[in-house]
């Protein structure tokens, strides 16, 4: 190729300059949105309810006025909002739960707002999430273990299931958990274990939560998100159980009349325990479009949206009086569950969370890695390099 021919490459640049922004028009991102929302990418996603378009219709706004930025997880929503807190871009954050609320409070990224219709919310949810309405609850679910009945191998009595059973090789080699640093159900399950086992001296069960994780890490698979976990659940023959919600069986049952999955909660002395995850919507401090953001939050707890929660979000709506569809009959009745949240007060969670996550990381890696972290190989490899380096010095 001659030099002058290569000059044609430069012609690509103006072409790209034109094409790149043009292609964005096709995904209807308005250049000056009236409302900007940060949320996670699975919100109301399956089979899907276009809440942004629905709100535009409700509020009489032109198509594209609501811009939703879907981020991979709640941690990313928080870290972006924290990075922008002096000059906020987003008006609303959706998906911060009753654990991450502390981080949001500490970083002062949200401002309390009591929405119209707040009195319709289920008793207790507001207090358990944020009694000052820093976040308004829009749904709740209970963290459970969810498995494929026909593929699961082992003896599992749903009435008398104990977390201790997970520690057998048979169970833990079929289990998939989520990284609690990244995933909110993953974090919920970590808190379940902390509430149930506690340290050596406390907790409902014998033992301590760090030993529980050390043992699990031997064979249990870990994923960075709930989405990754469900992919592996259906893709890998030998992985048949994952951390999910008590309402997960409803998904297959409602969409395809598939009742071959079951959710199970730990039971101690006949009492079913579960960590209740309450998700909230919050108004960003100094949001650019505060008034519209308030209208959106009001609408988010209205009947119109809340009726979509069961069949698109697969957990329970925060608004009272919305009954679950019949196909939820394969799920554990939430009223029969004793929430573990009362064992770990919000203050304790706030103070200890960072330490718990560090301890969890240590426990998780201490399992198989301690015997296989390549340390002896490292030193052998280092010894191999010494002669090369020494000989070089002599040259």
């Amino acid at each position, binding site marked *: 190729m001659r030099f002058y021919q290569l000059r044609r490459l430069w012609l690509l640049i103006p072409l790209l300059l034109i094409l790149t922004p043009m292609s964005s028009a096709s995904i209807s991102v308005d250049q000056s949105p009236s409302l900007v929302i940060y949320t996670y990418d699975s919100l109301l996603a399956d089979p899907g309810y276009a809440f942004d378009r629905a709100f535009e219709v409700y509020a009489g706004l032109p198509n594209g006025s609501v811009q939703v930025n879907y981020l991979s997880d709640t941690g990313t929503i928080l870290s972006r909002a924290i990075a922008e807190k002096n000059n906020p871009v987003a008006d609303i954050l959706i998906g911060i739960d009753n654990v991450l609320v502390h981080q949001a409070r500490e970083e002062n990224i949200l401002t309390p707002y009591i929405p119209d219709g707040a009195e319709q919310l289920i008793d207790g949810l507001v207090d358990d999430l944020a009694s000052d309405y820093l976040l308004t609850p829009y749904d709740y679910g209970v963290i459970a273990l969810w498995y494929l009945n026909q593929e699961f191998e082992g003896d599992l009595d749903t009435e008398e299931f104990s977390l201790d059973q997970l520690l057998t090789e048979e169970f833990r080699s079929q289990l998939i958990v989520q990284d609690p640093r990244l995933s909110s159900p993953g974090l919920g399950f970590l808190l379940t274990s902390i509430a149930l086992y506690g340290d050596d001296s406390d907790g409902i069960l014998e033992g301590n939560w760090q030993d529980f994780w050390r043992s699990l*890490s031997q064979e249990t698979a870990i994923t960075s998100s709930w989405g990754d976990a469900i992919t592996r659940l259906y893709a890998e023959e030998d992985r048949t159980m994952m951390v999910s919600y008590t309402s997960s069986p409803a998904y297959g049952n409602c969409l395809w009349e598939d009742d071959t999955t079951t959710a199970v909660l730990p039971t101690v002395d006949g009492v079913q325990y579960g960590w209740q995850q309450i998700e909230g919507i919050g108004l960003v401090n100094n949001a650019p479009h505060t008034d519209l953001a308030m209208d959106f939050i009001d609408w988010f707890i209205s009947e119109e949206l809340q009726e979509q929660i069961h069949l698109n979000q697969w957990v329970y709506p925060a608004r009272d009086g919305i009954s679950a569809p019949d196909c939820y009959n394969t799920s554990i009745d939430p009223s029969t569950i004793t929430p573990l949240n009362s064992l770990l007060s919000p203050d304790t969670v706030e103070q200890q969370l960072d330490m718990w996550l560090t301890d969890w990381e240590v426990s998780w890696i201490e399992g198989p890695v301690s015997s296989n972290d*390549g340390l002896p190989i490292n030193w052998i490899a280092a010894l191999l390099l010494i002669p090369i380096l020494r000989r070089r010095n002599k040259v």
Partner: protein
Amino acid sequence: MKHSHYAILLPFLAFLGIFFYWPMTKILTIAFSAGPEQILAVISNPLTTRFFRFTLGQSILTVVGATLLGLPTGYLLSRHRLFGDKFIRAALTVPFLFPPLVLLLGFVLVSENFISPIFNTYSPFSYSGIVIAHILYNVSLITRITESGFAGESQGLHDLARTMGSGTWSRFRDISLPQVKPALISGLLLVFLFSFNSFAIVLILGEVRLQTLEVMIYAQSRLRFNIETAAILAILQLSINLVVIAVYTRTSRSTSSLELNTLQKPPTKSLYATLFTYVIALLTWIPAMAVIYYVINQQSISLAEFFSSDYNRYLGTSSLRVILNTLFIGFIVAITAVLLSLSIVVFSYLRREESVDRLLIPLILLPMGTSAVTTGFALLQTHGQFSVFSKIVLVYIIAAQLLIAIPFATRAVSSSWENVPKEILQVTDTMDVSQVDVLRNVIFPYLRTGIFVAFLFSLAISIGEFGATFYLIRGEWTTLSLAIERLFTSRSTVLPNMYASFLVLFTLLLFWIIERVGTLELKL
């Protein structure tokens, strides 16, 4: 000596000041204002020591593995005529240009479909998986660097040794090895540097158990909001990188040797050398071939998914736009990298500098020692506070990628400056011609090749960049590497392979053009 000459460097210096020195100063301030107790606590934390050992250990294993495969290959390439000589050289160079995400995806695909069914317990998500992926990535680097090291050997020395009864092995040990050593060591150091700072491969294959310092910096700053801890780890990583780079620049300076009577290759083509090099080339190509094979196999689904809008929510934009973004950012990075590198040459000419080495340390060495994630972290800690940050995040993505591409671009351009015969410049100095004319008519023709290589190499770096872009990305500016990561395991297996295939094809095209205009130097 005119101080006004420094004005030429002003854009370069301003760029580094705004996008590198200020952010890095901030990271230093955060780290050191934590106080000695906190610094000690972070460094002596069991997680830090464990992951530090891992970071070091896997880098050393990668170096050893890449050398075991790359050194014999480089030796055979330099000593023998092979069947398809040009082809095999190209095939052994390209894998180094493949984006890490392509390699990762292909490696996982091969492991899960071919290796795991045979060795039941094998998982690529393991220590050995990380090391193998790193080795596959770096074999080509060692091969090409040692090949040029071996190529400069003296025919006379070998003849002399042979007449004194010296065998092939002892000649290899006593003549070839000392000859190749400086080149080999700079190769080893580069491989060490790349694996020590590895991000994408370890982030995905290491899960939670195995983390490099790079992954730790990301996790501490982005997932745990422990800014101080992340800053302390970043400084620890930077210090080690700088020591390695300092040794590297010392050794790489001694690699050039002038031997007129270099070793002659035997006239006949060697079958066993051909076989060996083809096997090594095939090994390094397996991941790329796997993704392309996958897409060809799933052709109809691939196209349907590519044009479907189902994934826009996860990508932040459409698949088409992801490709356009990648190219757009790549071209801007490449053009800017060339312009900034050229300013160094113009400065050197105006100041009549023989070599640009004097400028290397502040302009190139420090950015080169700073990892991709640290670059993103530092930019977010400083520029992130401005209200325009999110709106003009594209500028920061480009800046971060530029910081990564600049060492390579300046190397390519400045080495062609060193080819300009300085005697001609002495002659033009005595003539009545303007410096602009000299630059345009005398110097520029010598630089053309360097400029094109710098442009294309920067483009290749930009389209494959992951760490910094991943750290900074917002909304619709997703690039191909990021899109692969986003859809890696969960939502679609077809689309990531499709994106990776596009990256492979584009990299091949770039390489083909580079080979046409000049040669690609796999060093700095």
